[in-house]
């Protein structure tokens, strides 16, 4: 009944922040329509894209996400009138900041998926999963989390000289 599951060396962890009114319903539609999409995505439901703070994305990466998807209602369809308009500006700015810090923006995807677009949800999730799978694990934030102490240069020439003098 189910198609043969493909074995992969690396299964990326994708976190999806979705709004409850459009994308969550869209994902639900994909499920009730029995469409197949990668099981790598973990869906987190929010009232609105306007509720999704950029710090959530940061936290997701720090906790081991390899890719993040943020999805909500199409512009003009927001249940709260303007939540997604505000989110659009905020995420445009946040993308620029992450890019400047040195995060690969291919791991961060934004989309508008309405409650009727089960097919688009499948497409967006599949695309992101395959893209991130090809890129490999997100190492930067994980490596950072492993580092224990502040790593300011503690072997400068001055310090070495002082050590030698003891």
């Amino acid at each position: 009944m189910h198609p043969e599951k493909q074995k992969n060396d690396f299964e990326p962890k994708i976190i999806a922040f979705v709004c409850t009114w459009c994308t969550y319903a869209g994902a639900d539609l994909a499920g009730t329509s029995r469409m197949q999409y990668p099981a790598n995505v973990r869906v987190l439901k929010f009232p609105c894209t306007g509720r999704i703070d950029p710090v959530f994305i940061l936290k997701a990466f720090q906790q081991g996400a390899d890719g993040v998807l943020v999805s909500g209602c199409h512009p003009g369809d927001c249940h709260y009138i303007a939540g997604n308009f505000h989110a659009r500006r905020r995420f445009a700015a946040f993308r620029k900041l992450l890019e400047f810090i040195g995060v690969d923006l291919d791991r961060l995807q934004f989309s508008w998926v309405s409650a009727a677009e089960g097919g688009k949800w499948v497409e967006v999730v599949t695309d992101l999963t395959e893209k991130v799978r090809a890129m490999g694990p997100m190492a930067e934030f994980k490596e950072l989390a492993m580092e224990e102490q502040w790593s300011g240069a503690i072997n400068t020439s001055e310090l070495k000289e002082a050590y030698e003098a003891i």
Partner: protein
Amino acid sequence: MTQPIDTSIYAAITEAIQAEAKRLLSEGQVSVVIGYAAGRRKGSVQPVVVSDAAIADKLIFTPASVNNLAVYLTKAKKEIPKSGKIGVVVKGCDLKALVGLMGESQLKREELYLIGVPCAGVLASTVQPDTVLTADTIASKCCECDAHLPTGCDFVPNVTLPTRPQLEWKYAAEIARLEALTPAERWSFWKEQFAKCIKCYACRQVCPFCFCEQCLCDRNKPQMVESTPRPAGNTAWHIVRAMHLAGRCAGCAECERVCPMDIPLNLLNRKMAKELKELYDYEASLEVNEKGPLTSYTDKDDQSFIK
């Protein structure tokens, strides 16, 4: 030998500030005047709150008057009594911060008496306070300054600002250099910078726009930003700080000045200002705007990055 910058008008400004403060305090027009006074170290300057006309001649203005006094007026800093009008000495960059605070309803214009200072530039944080102001010792923010003359103040000393030689735009050059690198190279640059952070939060304390009663980064249920000075928490803190200031930062560069570890914090703020200028044509200015770029929207905003 680099070209010195003409600061001869600062003596006249000092006199004018003293006379005006004396008049305001003796007439009872203001309850206090917040300004600059000489510090204990030679040439150094520290903020002072003057409430008595007799000591108004403590007020000075020199190239070492670096502090942004707007920080003493925000809700979070309760040192200043909120009774009567408050006189405050402002440079152009400080005025931008005050105007930003007015836009965010933190201050009322009618409660302030603004003593504007025509400013040719102040010293960088890396030099001694008694250094002569030159193209090398001037603060980086002053090189890109577009608000030498404050506007809309109640009192501005009657002096003519000398013309200044064109200075190198250090932030713009550094941003361009970083943008040309690969993401991995940028990451290693910032990783090294943020690794220096000791989480003293001086950048937060000194910022006029960090006036939240409780900072998101201090909350532990849920803990969004790790509070220990480890690389992970440091990176998160600096990203959150830059994001919360995006579209609000007035560019006074106080965060960078007070940083004991010399992290180029204003670089992040300048980068965000540049992007918001490109995206939404917004710049910190001397006019009160009730809506910033990230608290307003249009239905035609760019969404090329959204699927």
